[in-house]
């Protein structure tokens, strides 16, 4: 398979995945596209949405379609890191000899659903840090590799504040994208009704395997990016900082902390996949703009004023984009 065919296969595979998900998920095309971008960029996604929109369903369905090992972790206030990572347990053999044996936690999967991640304490949330960044887990001094492709899909409810723990900055920065599930419109709701309350049968087919995903991932980093696109991206990220000269008044007023360097990486990598999904061999400004909100919205921390006034970070990202030269 030559390079051109490989690029074409990415588009084709994405089309297949989207079609399969469409059997059970109504609408949410952009979310699905961004999830696929996350997957190919070796990233993790934080999905935010009110209860009942099908967050868990999407992740579970995706694992079936991609034929990946699926793990679900329901985050609760009493959840401990060992519950996620695993722990050493005492095991006795037939001769009565006892030894510690590592019992793998749910993190040892390929597609991990961290459901309602903000309900666990920061200590437990932090258990995911190494796994998400390094693809490894260290328990009692022993390091264990996670099987690639490894992807954490966390969900959180933006409404409920009681008994929740906001994700620490270090944790949230490790998410490649923060995706928002929008409430379905009337037509979509009607379709949801038809699929869930009537005698609707569907069967999700396996479209890709881990190998195919890894092969596609290897192609992403080779996609050319022009220097002016890189400049634009760096200016975009720097403009999210309230102390930057190019920051708008609203950024200076409502933002406490701008996007980290992971933000730039996310933008470029996501732009590359976006270009490939459009059948192009180069990253365009449109690609960067397309992924700017999911890549930056969770990396721009609002200050007290921004929080109390309920400022929408997406609006601030739009403002930065419109103010940037070359946009």
């Amino acid at each position: 398979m030559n390079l051109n065919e490989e690029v074409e296969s990415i588009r084709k595979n994405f089309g297949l995945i989207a079609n399969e998900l469409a059997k059970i998920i109504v609408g949410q095309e952009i979310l699905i596209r961004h999830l696929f971008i996350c997957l190919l960029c070796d990233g993790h996604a934080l999905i935010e949405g009110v209860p009942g929109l099908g967050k868990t369903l999407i992740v579970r369905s995706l694992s079936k379609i991609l034929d990946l090992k699926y793990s679900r972790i329901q985050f609760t206030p009493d959840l401990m890191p060992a519950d996620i990572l695993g722990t050493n347990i005492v095991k006795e053999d037939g001769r009565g000899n006892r030894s510690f044996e590592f019992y793998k936690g749910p993190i040892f999967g390929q597609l991990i659903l961290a459901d309602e991640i903000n309900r666990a304490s920061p200590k437990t949330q932090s258990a995911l840090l190494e796994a998400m960044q390094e693809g490894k887990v260290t328990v009692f001094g022993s390091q264990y590799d996670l099987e690639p492709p490894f992807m954490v899909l966390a969900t959180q409810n933006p409404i409920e504040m009681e008994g929740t723990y906001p994700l620490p900055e270090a944790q949230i920065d490790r998410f490649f994208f923060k995706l928002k599930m929008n409430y379905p419109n009337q037509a979509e709701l009607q379709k949801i009704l038809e699929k869930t309350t009537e005698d609707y049968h569907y069967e999700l087919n396996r479209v890709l395997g881990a190998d195919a995903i890894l092969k596609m991932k290897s192609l992403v980093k080779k996609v050319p990016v022009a220097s002016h696109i890189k400049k634009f991206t760096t200016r975009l990220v720097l403009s999210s900082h309230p102390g930057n000269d190019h920051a708008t008044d609203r950024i200076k007023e409502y933002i406490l902390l701008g996007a980290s360097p992971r933000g730039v990486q996310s933008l470029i990598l996501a732009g590359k996949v976006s270009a490939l999904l459009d059948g192009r061999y180069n990253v365009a400004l449109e690609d960067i703009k397309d992924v700017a909100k999911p890549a930056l919205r969770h990396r721009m921390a609002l200050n007290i004023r921004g929080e109390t006034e309920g400022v929408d970070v997406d609006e601030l990202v739009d403002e930065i984009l419109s103010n940037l030269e070359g946009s």
Partner: protein
Amino acid sequence: MSGKISFVSQIAKIKRRIVIQAIHRMLLNASLIFLSISTFLIILTKAGITDYYIMATWYFVPSGISLSAALLIGLVRKRNLLNVLIEIDGRLKLQDRLSTAYEYLKFKTQTEFSELLMNDAAAKLRQIDNQQLVPAGFSWLHMLVIILLIINIFLYSSIFSPLELTSTHPELRKIETAGKLLKDYTIRRIDNKAVRKPKPQSVYAAKLEQLSNQFNDSARSFEQHVAALDSFLKEVQGEQTRLANELGGRLDSAAIKELPSLKIPDATNLSHRQLEKLKEFLDQTLNNRMPDAISRNIESLMELDAIEKLLSQIVDDLKDGRSMIDDSNESAGNEEWMSQTTETLENSPDGPNKPNPDGQFSDDSRSAADRSDQPGSGKLQRDGHDLQDGMAHPEGYSDSAGSGPSNAENKSSYEPEKAPGAAIPDKMASSRAKSYLIHIRALTGIGEARLKEEEIFQTYRKEVESILQKEDIPMNYREYIKNYFISIGINTEENTHEFK
């Protein structure tokens, strides 16, 4: 590899178009700057701050400034090809294909996608017309240039006449000198009057002064000055004719007509000197009891004659100089003109009795003297005895020297075409030269005199003798008449004897 070649050829097309556009922009900027400077200079010239446009090479400086500035702007604003491609990408929604491909081509960045990228970009370029890639639109700069061009055309056509733009320094110097002459004349006239006796300034003297002031107005063109002089000259000539007719009528009606020995001269043709002599003669004849009206009339005629001569000469010189000026003889011509004009002024009516170096009284004007001094013009004219010229002669004698008896019909007025000698043609319709030709007799070309001047004198003498013998002249006037003829040249003993 084919993708790369294709892309390179497409980029070359864009480069060519960019170069053409850069030149176009440079010329546009140059035009803009040139027209701006030109407008500014026209306004300055109009305001009288500078006379920049008088110089024939005025456009070299703005042209040089414009081209240099446009070149500088072009160099400063020289666009990088990569930036042009980025602009094309954005404008034609090519999603940064061209810029990325060109960057990878230029910096030879090795990637598996390079070939695909260039092939893709070349394919996109092939679908787009060159005109779309680098459009040559009508910008606001074009509009500005058009507006400035219209302003320039308007300023050129309405504010400046074409002749003004071609005015040369010699012409301006001529205007200046003419104005100076008029002023000098006016000043001298005032001074002389102050020395002699205070007299109210005539209308024509006032007009002359006014005309002199107009010559200081730099806004008026050369042609306007000449036209003003021409107009004034015609007016003076008309007034001269009127006054001459009036004088003739007065002489007829006064007791002078009763003088049997003198026929009333045609006052229209009398020169300043002739008028002066006539006045002297009448004073002597009438024992200084000449009527005031006639005296004033003669004085007015004398003044007008002086003004007319001055104006004629200035107009002649201005008009002749305009066609004859060239770079080689410009300075020499001006000097000669100046000396001529100065000489004329020295012989002007306010100093009419200044003797020439030869001891004789000067003629009315230099030009008149030059013409009357030509061979064949007759002794009377050459010696400056013009009064005789102006006097009527017995029937059967023509006004043309040496032409012999003429028809009675031709006696009253001189017709140059019927004269025996070819009259010197004059270019100026309104100049004094033409009217001068009418009353200058025997005005023939050089060496074309038909009769000897002694023969002409013989005729006059016989006529005078016949009058004297008839005793038409009273005894007490005979002495005066004899003295008169002696004064005009018949002063030899033989002639005197003959008269007796």
